[in-house]
């Protein structure tokens, strides 16, 4: 990766005119500014699209039994779509408090990985990191890591993170107030909307073979446990299955040269 603003000054010939040096610097400066503007545009469009579905979170949260203040607390303090939907899903299904906290936490683990990825790219001072942490979500990470120069990485991260935060919270409030006024949630199909919301969060992750396998195993395990286990347990059990699949998959990858017991002759079969 080249980072235009990290590039050392071009080594000009000792007798080269000083203006050439300045011209190159000028061109780099313009390129970086263009990239920053593009990052901000991208951030704004992602913010609007993501912020809008705060409406569905707000409505589904009050339907699940949380009040408007609790719903807003989740969007302000937790601020991570997957974890928020998971928490209200477990609460709505009558799960235990511990299961609700654990499920939301497990879905938040990926944000730790995002933070580790963003740390060196953003290169922030210590207390700025604390603020940046709250805005570390799928979308801000995606926009930030798609940029090349440090200024564009920072612009992409902050504009996306803060933009979504503002819109997500505003739309959550709209949804929560609307959900409160709706009456019977089943008549409006809101229970099906909750399932569809999870499916939409899952969909883009299903490109890789191992992810499809983990998702399929999770469906089977969850469905099998619903009739026999207390609320929340079917979801957590699915996480345990995924960890096992991850270990098996890793072991398989670590020994690529070892001949497999079955007739696995295709070198390209070890897909992602």
């Amino acid at each position, binding site marked *: 990766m080249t980072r235009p603003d990290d590039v050392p000054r071009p080594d000009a010939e000792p007798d080269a005119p000083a203006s050439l040096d300045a011209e190159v610097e000028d061109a780099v400066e313009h390129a970086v500014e263009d990239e920053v503007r593009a990052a901000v545009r991208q951030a704004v469009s992602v913010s609007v699209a*993501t912020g*809008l579905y705060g409406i*569905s979170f707000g409505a589904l949260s009050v339907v699940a039994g*949380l009040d408007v203040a609790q719903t807003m*607390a*989740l969007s302000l*303090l*937790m601020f*991570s779509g*997957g974890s928020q939907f*998971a*928490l209200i*899903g477990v*609460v709505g299904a009558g799960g235990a408090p511990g299961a609700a*906290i654990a*499920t*939301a*936490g*497990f*879905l938040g*683990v990926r*944000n*730790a*990985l995002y*933070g*580790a990825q*963003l740390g060196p790219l953003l290169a922030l001072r210590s207390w700025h*990191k*604390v603020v*940046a942490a*709250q805005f570390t979500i799928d979308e801000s990470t995606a926009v930030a890591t798609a940029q090349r120069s440090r200024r564009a990485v920072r612009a992409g991260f902050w504009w996306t993170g803060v933009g979504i935060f503002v819109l997500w919270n505003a739309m959550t409030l709209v949804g929560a107030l609307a959900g409160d006024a709706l009456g019977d949630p089943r008549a*409006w*199909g809101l*229970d099906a*909307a*909750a*399932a569809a*919301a*999870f*499916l*939409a969060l*899952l969909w883009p992750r299903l490109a890789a073979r*191992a*992810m499809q396998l*983990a998702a*399929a195993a*999770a469906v089977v395990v*969850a*469905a099998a446990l*619903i009739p*026999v286990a*207390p*609320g929340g347990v*079917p979801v957590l059990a*699915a996480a345990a*299955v*995924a*960890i096992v699949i*991850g*270990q098996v998959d890793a072991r398989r990858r670590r020994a690529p040269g070892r001949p497999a017991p079955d007739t696995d002759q295709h070198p390209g079969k070890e897909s992602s």
Partner: protein
Amino acid sequence: MTSATVWVVVLAASAVCFALKLAGHLVPEHWLADERVARTAALVTAALLAALVTVQTVGDGQALVVDARLPALGVAAVALALRAPFIVVVVLAAATAAGLRALGWG
């Protein structure tokens, strides 16, 4: 859950989620750079979401039921395959379930 319990859950889970976010920014980079950690976390995320889809679609307390939610999820899947935006997917699913119930099924 009582309202007070829900508050405890909301605040505790929010604290856990923030701690995870902050940990990522503070730990030395190489700790989480291990590819196995990243892959397992991605698998866990997919499995949790798939399990949540299942519970929300066919769960009813401790019973497995087939009702208007299942065809609604099918409509959502078709919409996602056609690259519809999130809000459209959710609205179509709700409309499908609401429509079927208005017709007296599910």
